[in-house]
Each structure stands twice: as structure tokens, then as C-alpha cells.
């Protein structure tokens, strides 16, 4: 049975896109992630405690995981497979600046790349498989390959690339699952393959 990309989101150049639709566009700002959060009216105050990588992931995941057809899937069968180049380096550097004088526990807990996986899991009660891969650049083949292996047992996989550094904020999450009665009327199906994933990411 084929697997499909049922939904995707992108954050790039101060814009948040969901399935080709512009959800939010923020003008010149130093607080793009916070401004986007406000524009979405999320009412999730925990957001402000998070580091930038977690904020980016939570914002990207929100549009996908609140979709009705996806919300009904069994949460223990949704896997989360993420990737980036920098791991948690931005937060690592921020923590390292504090560690000689007053090491900050609230920064330290974010010095792992998969904390964003935990934040997404907590917000949406997702308890399936996890994996975080580090790659020099976005690698559709790797994500596609491992997702297909997971779909032998999981129902669906939230995948993507979440990258934050001093200058750029690059988030791309997509949701891979099977065609079902509840989702087939709503969604423009995109076959799950590396070409389509790359196209969605680069477009």
C-alpha cells in the first residue's frame, strides 16, 4: 500500500505556510517566532519557556496535528522523525556562556536536538517512535527511507527538518500516512517519495 504526504508546513523568510496556503506573514522583526505564535492565537504559555528550535517545531507541527483527519489517528502510532545540521548548537552556545558563573538549568534542558520532539509530543499527546538525525543538509532520501521502515508498524510519521542559527530559521514538517476514508475527500494526495519531499521543501 502506498503512503502519502497528507499535510505539510513550512516556516521560511518570516512566513508560515500550510499546504501551500500562507497562514501568517510577519514583517521585519527580531521576534519572528513569538510574533507568529501571537498571530496564531495558540494560548499555550509554555511556548515562551522554549528555546528557538522548540518554538520553530511547535509552530510547524500545530497546523498539521490539529487537522481533523489527523487528530483522530491513534496517538501511540504516530512517529516523529526529525533532522537538522546544527543539533541544538544555538542553545548550546547560549548555555556555555552561563556555565562558568551561573549555569542556567532552564537553558541546559534545551541543549539536545530531540527536546523539540518532546515538546511536540507533549502538546499533541503523541507517544509513538522517535528519531533525530543530524545531516549536513536536508536529506529527503534518509527521511523517506526511515519513514517507510517505520510505516511497517506505525500508522503515520511526522517528519522534517528544523534548523535554527543566528541568521536563519528554516522549518519544514510534513505528515506521512495512509489513505483513509476520513481523509480522502479532503486532501490533495502527494505520493511519499524523495522527489516530492524535496520539491515541497525547496519550493
Amino acid at each position, binding site marked *: 500500500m502506498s503512503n502519502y504526504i497528507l499535510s505539510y508546513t513550512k516556516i521560511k523568510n518570516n512566513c508560515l505556510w500550510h499546504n501551500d496556503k500562507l497562514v501568517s506573514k510577519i514583517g521585519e522583526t527580531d521576534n519572528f517566532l513569538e510574533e507568529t505564535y501571537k498571530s496564531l492565537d495558540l494560548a499555550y504559555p509554555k511556548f515562551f519557556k522554549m528555546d528557538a528550535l522548540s518554538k520553530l517545531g511547535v509552530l510547524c507541527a500545530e497546523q498539521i496535528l490539529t487537522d481533523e483527519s489527523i487528530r483522530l489517528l491513534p496517538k501511540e502510532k504516530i512517529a516523529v522523525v526529525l533532522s537538522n545540521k546544527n543539533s541544538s548548537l544555538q542553545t548550546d552556545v547560549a548555555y556555555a556562556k552561563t556555565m562558568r558563573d551561573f549555569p542556567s538549568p532552564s537553558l541546559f*534542558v534545551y541543549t539536545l536536538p530531540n527536546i523539540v520532539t518532546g515538546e511536540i509530543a507533549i502538546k499533541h499527546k503523541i507517544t509513538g517512535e*522517535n528519531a533525530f538525525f543530524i*545531516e549536513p543538509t536536508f536529506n529527503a532520501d534518509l527521511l523517506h527511507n526511515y519513514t517507510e521502515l517505520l510505516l511497517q508498524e506505525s500508522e503515520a510519521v511526522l517528519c522534517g527538518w528544523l534548523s535554527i542559527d543566528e541568521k536563519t530559521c528554516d522549518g519544514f514538517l510534513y505528515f506521512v500516512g495512509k489513505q483513509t476514508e476520513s481523509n480522502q475527500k479532503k486532501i490533495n494526495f502527494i505520493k511519499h517519495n524523495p522527489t516530492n519531499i524535496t520539491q515541497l521543501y525547496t519550493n
Partner: protein
Amino acid sequence: MNKAFLHNANIISPLGFTTKQNFDAVCDGKIAMQNHTFNGVTYCTAIIENKLLDEVFIQQTKLNPKEFTRLEKMCILSIKDVLNNSDIDVKSKRTLFIFSTTKGNIDLLENTKSEIPEERVYLHKTAEIIAAHFGFTNKPMVVSNACISGLLAIIIAKRLLADNQYDNIIVTGADIVSTFTLSGFNSLGALSSNPCKPFDKSRTGINLGEAAASVLISNQQKEDGVEIVSGSSANDANHISGPSRTGEGLYKCLQKVLVHNTAPDFINAHGTATEFNDEMESIAFNRAGLQNILINSLKGYYGHTLGAAGVLESVFCIEGLRQNKIIASTGFEKQGTSIELNIATKTENKKSITCLKTASGFGGCNAAVLYKMN
């Protein structure tokens, strides 16, 4: 579907530079943790002496130790030992190297005078340096998923082998002790100032340790090969820096991994010796009906080696199955969890066929693997 078997393995740790040295040291009750001072603060931690590491590195590789970080030297020695004892072709497209770590060369952030290029703080760079040394054709895969990294890398290797994508996979898990991790865990109040006491009533927290551990996983059964029967990960969806009070994620892993509800002969737990981790594990094991199975933790010998732990401890699981030995859970004296567990109090000979290995980490992640001696 192909099967996956663990073969040659190596551990580079303060207790030795081969699997045998490590296994023998632990059977003799040796503990790697000692007091060491980092930036004026004394910690009870397990570190490899720099001088010894460099001596062995020069002797084994003839390379200039100044061109590699501590972590890279440990990994290169570890993989070299595994490859020396095997005939696999690293240049084959059917061979993969998976590197698991939490913080990689994080000490480069602290040491601005280092001769090592700053870019090596990127985990994929570290993996590329190690892979290039051995000439792997495939580019390395890097897994960084907190304290389940090593065990998750083994699970991923099993899945890739089962799908017939490779014939041989080398999994290396490694992390070093650094001011970064020591100060961080200290700021959380998670460190014990004495050798840690997993599952014990008077446990007060973890020790950090450093190690590189490697294992060759192949689709071929050979003499002494230990099969990876099943493996799984799951998230608690509860808290980013504390385990679920009901052991939700770990319990889900156990349900998936213990196929046909067969109990393992022994369990090598995560057992970090924090109050909450060990308590959570006791609840998850009890929910899965495993409270009477003999359990140990190796953290009392090595401390918590973070991204290396899942691989290092798996090497002990397979050696335990090969030698029919169950290692005492050092540091344990009195039951200290709300569910009483069957903790191994002495190292003893016991015929075992299967072993369950578990791990849990920040970000709410959990993993479990079932090993079987065929």
C-alpha cells in the same frame, strides 16, 4: 525479512580499551568514577586519562593525536578494534557506519585555544572525520536522541538490515565528560558526589562518565552472534526533563518488544540512580509483569555515558549472554523504589538465553531491545 546479529564489539572506557578488559574489570567489581576537578569544581566522574589515550592512539594508529579530539580518538580506537577482528569490507556499498552521540565534541565550545577547527563541533563533521579515517564509502548516519541515542542507533541498524539495505553496520556510541555536561547536570541538582547507587533507597543522583563503544551488526549469523529479536522507541508525551510517573513510554516499548509476552532471562535497565528515573522504571517493569526478573544497572561502574550508554551496556548484555554471567548492580543495597524489583546483588553464573535492554532520556524518549543468544 532478514535477521540482525551482534558480533564483534569494543568498549573504550576508563576501565579498559577492549571488551574483555572492561568485562573482566566489572566482574572484579572495579568502579570507574573518581573525584576530578573541572574548572575549580570537584565532581565524582569517570574519565579516561588523556596521556593514556594519546599513547594508545599513537601506538595503534601512528597518527598525530593533536589532530583529533578526545572523542574522535576514542571512537577511532573503538572502531579499529572491531574491524581488526572482522573481515568486513568498509568500502562496500552494503556497509554502513552509524554514529550516536548527544554532545559530540562539545568541549570545543569551552576550549577556544584548541588547534582543532571549530566546525568539528557539528556532529556530522565529527562522524565524517571518523568515517574518513576508515574509508567507509557510504556517508555516516548520525543519531542524536538524548540518552537513548545508542540504543536507538542499534534499533535503526536492525531495521535497515531487516529491510536488506545493508549486510554490515557498525554502530558507535560515544560521549565525553565536559564542563558543559557536568555544570548542566549539576545545575539541575542531578549529580551524586559519590559513586551512584542505582535503584538503592539512598540514591542521590547520577555520575557522568565517558566512553566510546562499538558493535558490528550483520545480517549473517556467525558463531557467538547474538540476535536482535525486536526493538522499539516511544515518547512519554509528559515532560521534557523528567520521566513519566506512570512509565508510559517505557511501558509502551516493553509491550512492543516482548513479543508473545515471553519474559526475558534478565534485564539491563537504564538505572541512572536519580530518584525519578529508577522509580519510573520500577513502575514500567511492574506494569509489564517483569518485577521478578533479575535486573541490573551498569551506571554504578561507569556512571552515565549518555550517547554511549546504550551501546556500551548492550555490549555487556551480549557478553553476559555469551559467558552466562549476570553482573551485580553495584551500589544497590536496599530496595528504593515503590515497586520492589529483583536487583542482581552479586555477579554470578547463570544460563541465559534472552536479555532485555532499556533506556530513557530527556525529551521524554524511551527505548527497549530484546537480545537472544541462538
